[in-house]
């Protein structure tokens, strides 16, 4: 199915590494947070992009998420992985921003890299169109269903972590995921 059904949770080495780098940041090591940004920027950006559907807003949201993460580093207790903690912040940033602004339509991004794999142009175009339709449909999902689907499908977070991020039970997170798929199907008709 392409999803990590159970999720391994955080390994001890990852947890130790997360703790060490957060401690370094808190101790005043100015380069330590740069490492955090570099390791997690793509994932955070992609989450934001899927949430809002355009490059400019996604970039702003992702930057905002990292700034908030820096300010709130003392609040990282190590109970989840650093990536999950960052996802939580990014989701909250997206939820708050979407509540305030109407979404910008997805535009062609000049920074977008063209896939140069050897495939027929019509296939490439069709794939791109279908992907665009799915992204647009995801943006029309209710906020928490949208967040649930993005975190599960594209970031492969286990339902337990999604539930913790969104402040719900595991059962509610799974039900949310099912409803997201059901609504997505309706939107794609």
């Amino acid at each position, binding site marked *: *199915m*392409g*999803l990590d*059904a*159970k999720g391994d949770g955080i390994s001890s080495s990852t947890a130790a590494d997360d703790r060490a780098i957060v401690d370094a940041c808190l101790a005043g090591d100015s380069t330590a*947070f*740069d490492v955090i*940004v*570099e390791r997690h*920027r*793509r994932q955070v*950006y*992609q989450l934001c*992009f*899927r949430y809002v559907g355009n*490059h400019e807003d996604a*970039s702003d949201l*992702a*930057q905002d998420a*990292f*700034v908030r993460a*820096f*300010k709130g580093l003392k609040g990282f207790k190590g109970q989840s992985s650093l990536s999950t903690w960052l996802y939580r912040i990014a989701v909250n940033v997206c939820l708050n921003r979407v509540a305030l602004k109407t979404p910008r339509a997805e535009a062609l*991004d000049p*920074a*977008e*890299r063209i896939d140069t794999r050897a495939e027929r142009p019509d296939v490439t175009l069709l*794939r791109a169109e*279908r*992907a665009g339709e*799915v*992204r647009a449909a*995801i943006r029309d999902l209710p906020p928490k269903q949208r967040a649930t*689907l993005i975190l599960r*499908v594209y970031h492969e977070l286990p*339902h337990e972590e999604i539930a913790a991020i969104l402040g719900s039970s595991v*059962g509610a997170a*799974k*039900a949310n*995921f*099912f*409803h997201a*798929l*059901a609504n*997505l*199907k309706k939107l*794609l008709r």
Partner: protein
Amino acid sequence: MTHLTDVEIVDFLEDTLPPPRAAHLENCESCRRRTSDARDTLTRAIEADIPEPSPLFWDRFSEQVRDEIGETTASASAGWRQWLDHAGLRWAVSGAIIVALIAGAAWRVTAPTVQHTGVPAQPSARDVKPVPSGADVSIDDGLNADADPAWAVVRTLADEVPWSDSVEVGLAARPDAAERVADTLTSDERSELLRLLRAEIKRPGA
């Protein structure tokens, strides 16, 4: 056997549904259709990739985050001093603190010692330290203004107030200010002030 719930359909898609419950699908067209629809939508969602920004974007992204954090840190450290930029508020608060400090200093000089009986004792001759003749006496002797936190606050605030502002709003001393203050002192206070002034005059280098 009851139909699969929404949660159980998700578990089935993720291969975590116990086999006895999964067996329901063999005999239920409705649940098979719901499961199939969810699987097809999930597959289509997985295939929907997103455009990847250029490598230049990522370099610039890290730089912008760093700059924004730097601005945030700088504004936070200057936050408590930002009110000083408002001249009107600045002189008003500075003036209030200076008045409070003068009142506090005057109280410190004149406050009598309280005995255990609760009756304030009058200062005796033994309480007044004689000035050693020819000794290097500092006018701050006994007051230790540098260790006074209130004075430290006033000095910090005053450093930020341009002289022209303080003159304009009346904080700077006027020509007759010393005389007017002296008129308000009691006789004991005047004696003490005279003693301090004489000691300062006698101080080498004064």
